């Protein structure tokens, strides 16, 4: 497996393939350094600039690697490092791309949101450390690195959710996130220990070959272990049955952190889930009776239905977005639920990855719009949004784009990614998964359009006191809006890249 980089880069050491994660970690450390060296409270512009610059640098390197074909078949295949415990390939780069761009948008938006708060340097550095964990999750190739990187992504997130430490909602959200997170990581690590008991290894490929060769008679132990690992993934991706934290954490957390968790953290969870189940428990090698595809089919259907129905009953816009985020986890789960032992698996997995990329833009944008509204001190319910378009037309146009794109209406990026996802599910023979997804999408239009209707059609109940036009928040929201729109013409190359790198896994 271990292949050197191609001749042109033969002088670069192997570990340089991990450059995006290294840049993110170093930026986090630099932020802590600035906080230590700076005499008083560090300048917010310097901190936000460093954080955004670091994540944009990581994004640039990742994009360059992806275009140059690092870790892909044309330059010699996946680069595995440190005894195969980390692997850099097209899929890991694709997911690092999502993580880094979301991190950059969140850092820019936090510039205004954190105005007047204490401990800003810690805030930015924890965002960067969590992003490091998410980038590492995409490269994890052993159950050990999977667990360590998952914890590296989770632990700063708990603290970030509870960042507004004098706000009861934020603290409550942090507590619930911590409790459910620690239980699910305990379940996850117990699952890992059961897989180790049955296979004697933690490296994905070795686990697969040990389970495939029938070394072990412990089918029950394997089944229980796989089920517990599914549980750990469900937590990170906010899917049923470990989704309870999501509405609370997203509602209570500072809005940029809600954006970060619901886009980047979810994508990283899927990156890990895709690799674990495709590499460590491949269909066909796994003992009969351990049918994880069936488990994911049930989870996908339940997750999207529950998320969409719960979102339809909400009065609070942020909480509605939280449930819609659960619904979208259900759509992305189709990528695992529609796998077959021999089928064209790369297509559906790639479509799911492309959907997560588009989702990274539109959902981050939507949550950052909420951050903007919170910054202005406008209320949180649908009624409070009445007539908002007259006071802030540009931001309202961006939010309208996000809402229609999330719902999957034709002229936006979200339409194509959902279309590709459902189409490839039908191609793999799971027409009923696509049907459930389409029905749910139609339902979701109801609650997304409620936001649009409130902003543009309803009369305002009072006057808005919007005095400021925060530059950072506006820049981040408009960038996300631009990304959502540009992903419509650019969707062809995106889905092509995603399906190629996904096919390389099988």
């Amino acid at each position, binding site marked *: 497996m271990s292949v050197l980089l191609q001749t042109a880069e033969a002088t670069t050491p192997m570990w340089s393939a991990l450059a995006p994660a290294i840049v993110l970690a170093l930026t986090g450390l630099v932020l802590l350094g600035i906080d230590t060296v700076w005499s008083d409270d560090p300048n917010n512009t310097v901190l936000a600039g460093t954080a955004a610059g670091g994540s944009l640098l990581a994004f640039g390197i990742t994009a360059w690697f992806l275009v140059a074909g690092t870790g892909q078949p044309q330059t010699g295949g996946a680069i595995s490092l440190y005894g195969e415990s980390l692997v850099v390939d097209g899929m890991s780069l694709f997911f690092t791309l999502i993580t880094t761009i979301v991190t950059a948008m969140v850092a820019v938006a936090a510039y205004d949101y954190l105005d007047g708060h204490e401990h800003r340097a810690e805030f930015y550095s924890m965002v960067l450390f969590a992003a490091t964990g998410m980038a590492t999750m995409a490269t994890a190739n052993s159950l050990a690195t999977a667990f360590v990187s998952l914890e590296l992504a989770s632990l700063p997130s708990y603290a970030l959710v509870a960042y507004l430490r004098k706000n009861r909602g934020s603290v*409550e959200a942090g507590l619930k996130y911590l*409790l459910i997170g620690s239980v699910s990581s305990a379940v996850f*690590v*117990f699952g*890992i*220990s059961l897989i180790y008991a049955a296979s*004697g290894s933690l490296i994905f490929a070795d686990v697969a070959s040990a389970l495939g060769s029938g070394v072990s008679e412990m089918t029950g132990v394997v089944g229980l272990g796989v089920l517990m690992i599914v549980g750990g993934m469900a937590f990170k991706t906010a899917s049923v049955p470990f989704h309870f934290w999501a509405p609370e954490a997203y509602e209570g957390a500072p809005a940029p952190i809600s954006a970060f968790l619901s886009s980047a953290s979810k994508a990283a969870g899927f990156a890990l889930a895709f690799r674990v189940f495709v590499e460590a428990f491949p269909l066909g090698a796994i003992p009969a009776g351990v049918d994880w595809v069936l488990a994911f089919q049930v989870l996908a259907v339940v997750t999207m239905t529950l998320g969409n129905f719960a979102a339809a009953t909400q009065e609070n816009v942020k909480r509605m977005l939280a449930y819609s985020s659960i619904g979208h986890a259900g759509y992305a789960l189709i990528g695992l639920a529609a796998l077959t032992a021999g089928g064209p698996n790369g297509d559906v997995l790639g479509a799911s990855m492309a959907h997560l990329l588009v989702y990274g833009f539109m959902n981050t944008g939507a949550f950052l719009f909420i951050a903007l509204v919170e910054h202005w001190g406008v209320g949180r319910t649908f009624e409070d949004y009445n007539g908002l378009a007259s006071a802030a037309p540009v931001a309202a146009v961006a939010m309208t784009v996000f809402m229609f794109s999330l719902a999957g209406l034709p002229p936006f990026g979200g339409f194509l990614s959902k279309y590709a996802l459902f189409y490839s599910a039908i191609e793999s023979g799971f027409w009923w998964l696509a049907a459930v997804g389409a029905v749910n999408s139609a339902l979701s239009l109801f609650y997304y359009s409620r936001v649009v209707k409130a902003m543009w059609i309803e009369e305002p109940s009072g006057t808005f006191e919007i005095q400021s036009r925060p530059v950072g928040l506006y820049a981040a929201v408009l960038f996300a809006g631009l990304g959502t729109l540009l992903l419509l013409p650019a969707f062809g190359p995106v889905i092509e890249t995603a399906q190629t790198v996904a096919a390389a896994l099988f």
Partner: protein
Amino acid sequence: MVPPEYYLLLSAAVFCIGLFGILTRRNALLILMSVELMMNAANINLVAFSYVWGNVTGQTFGLFVMALAAAEVAIGIGIVLVLYRNFDGVDVTEATTMRW
């Protein structure tokens, strides 16, 4: 030598005790302790099967799990502290400002 099945039974028992604690306790600190029990149940498996399989992968990973469990408690205690300051107690059922 003790048959490996016994280790599985022991670890499953410890895991279930931890899970029972989480489901029945209302004190946030006791819930964190119960999580520790669940993580240590995994460590029993890792160390025992490291011996059975004759490699040190499991033992090494066991050390990682211990370190991460400690890190998790460090964050957890911080959050329990702000919980205490905001809600005048560490009862997890008190913190109900949000409802679906």
